């Protein structure tokens, strides 16, 4: 289906988002800008950590298989976004995984806390869907194409 960006077999994006509508709209936006990378969706902060660190319901995962990028909402059930970020940065396996905070919050405090917590980017989701699609396009272009991430397994 993708004529644009080609994705390697095991490349994937982790989307941490509890709002069903936002999940669908985000997937739709990625689809529209023809980013064909697999997108794994987890619905709360605890599941995100379980997935990333192969614990709990994701205990059978290979934790060394990290996502190309984590799109992280801030306001999440169970474990909130900033805490997910903190624990990702504490863990050697996920210390260098790029994290883009993708949130509704335009709060300066959140923004600062996000960067201090080690987020690589902070994107505020606009209400206007066309602007949102545009934001996703640029995000994909930068983080999946232009940016050279640290090789996997580096810590």
């Amino acid at each position: 289906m993708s004529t644009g960006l080609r994705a390697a077999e095991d490349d994937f994006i982790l989307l941490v988002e509890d709002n069903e509508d936002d999940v669908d709209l985000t997937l739709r936006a990625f689809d529209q800008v023809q980013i064909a990378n697999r997108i794994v969706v987890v619905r709360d902060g605890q599941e995100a950590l379980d997935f990333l660190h192969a614990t709990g319901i994701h205990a059978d995962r290979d934790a060394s298989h990290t996502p190309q990028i984590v799109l992280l909402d801030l306001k999440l059930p169970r474990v909130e976004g900033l805490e997910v970020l903190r624990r990702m940065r504490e863990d050697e396996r996920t210390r260098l995984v790029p994290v883009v905070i993708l949130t509704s919050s335009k709060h300066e405090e959140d923004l600062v806390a996000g960067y201090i917590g080690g987020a690589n980017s902070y994107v505020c989701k606009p209400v206007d869907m066309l602007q949102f699609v545009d934001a996703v396009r640029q995000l994909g272009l930068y983080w999946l194409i232009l940016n050279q991430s640290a090789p996997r397994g580096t810590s």
Partner: protein
Amino acid sequence: MDAVETTAQRREGHAHGFRAALEASPACLLMVDRDGVIRIANASVRETFGYAPEELVGQPIEILVPEPARSHHSELRDAYFRAPDERCLGKARALSGVRKDGSLVPLELRLQPIETEDGLGAMASVFEISKRRQLESERDRIFELTQDLIAVNGPDGVLERVNPAVVETLGFREEELVGHLFVDFIHPDDRAASLERLQDRLDGRGGAPAEVRCLCRDGSYRDFLWSTTFDVERKRIYAVGHDITDRKREEEVLRQATLSVQAMNKELEAFSYSISHDLRAPLRAIDGFSLALLEDCGDALDARGREHLSRVRRAAQRMSALIEDLLKLSRISRREPKEERVDLSAIVEDTIRELRESEPARHVDVRIARDVVARGDAGLLAVALQNLVENAWKYTSKREDAEIEFGRAFVDGDPAYFVRDNGVGFDMARADRLFGAFQRLHDARDFQGTGIGLATVQRVVNLHGGRLWADAAVDEGAQFTFTLGTEPQR
């Protein structure tokens, strides 16, 4: 005739004897007539006032009276002669005379009316107060006058002397206090520390003033700051207490108010946080799925159906803008304005440039006064000016010959800044609604807006301690003017 002479002679004899007695007196004596002229001065005046007696006789008594009493002394004199009696002056209130060399001499004075051949006069016996007695009387006066509590007690803690302020403040009679232990009048929780301090003083250790709660007759307690010192020679503790009850009460009220403001701010913070996050998410869904519907099923809809969906999207985006502005307003309200140099002209220029870029087709004649600089919070003033300039831009949009002007004027000597336009204006009768949040004077179909812009400007100006007002007329434009309390006084 003989009889008359005899009487005159007798009088003269009397007068002679009188004078001799005056001269012999060690007291300083002056006799003054009704008009205040010194008739008699004995030799002692030299010692007290530095004048020879003959220098004073014939002079008005006022030359011995210092200012400020001198200027109204004649009235005092008249009052005395209207009801002459024997009286002492200088005991209740300090009294001084002025010596020949201009220096002041503290005095006490006894006045007696005296009948002379020339009519009623007054004999003044003047006593110089020695330095020591003067100090003592001053000290007594302070003891009586001060609002601070003064208490003297022995090493055993028994009160021996209290000043009237103690009686007045605590409400106990003097005899209920004197002879009793001072700790009986101290809050039970403060007693141990007070006794410790007493021991410290007795042992020769000083200490900072201490807060102590003292018992009032009605059973309540008041807060005092007590300073105490020990006189080793007399074996007496001297204590001065300053009433800090009101201050402490105010501090407590202030503390509570600060706490509740902090709590309120925190709540507001949480509230605006959840607004910004939770309210925007459903709006995004409304907008996003409306667009999805247009994109995916647009063909199944006719033009009207597609227009309906576009309206849904516009409404969602408008509400999003509204939330944005409200959040901005609430953030501004809680901000402590900085004081820095702000180039207002530059802010207006930038705003106009952005507006021109957004609507390049519009022709607007803009005049911006150059180098208008104010003191205030750059971020807040930018928000305020952007709002005013954007309003001017918006409300001139229906005019071919639109004009916008920014400049400085002086109102009552204070600098004031204005943004003027020749747009649609408004009816001044409705101006009172202008600065409230969500208040709009124009139909949303004519001019878009959230109704929060001017409320925001108002907040910014208020935070600076300034004033904002409007002048306008329908179809003739509007002018918004504001001052800033942060300006230096000219």
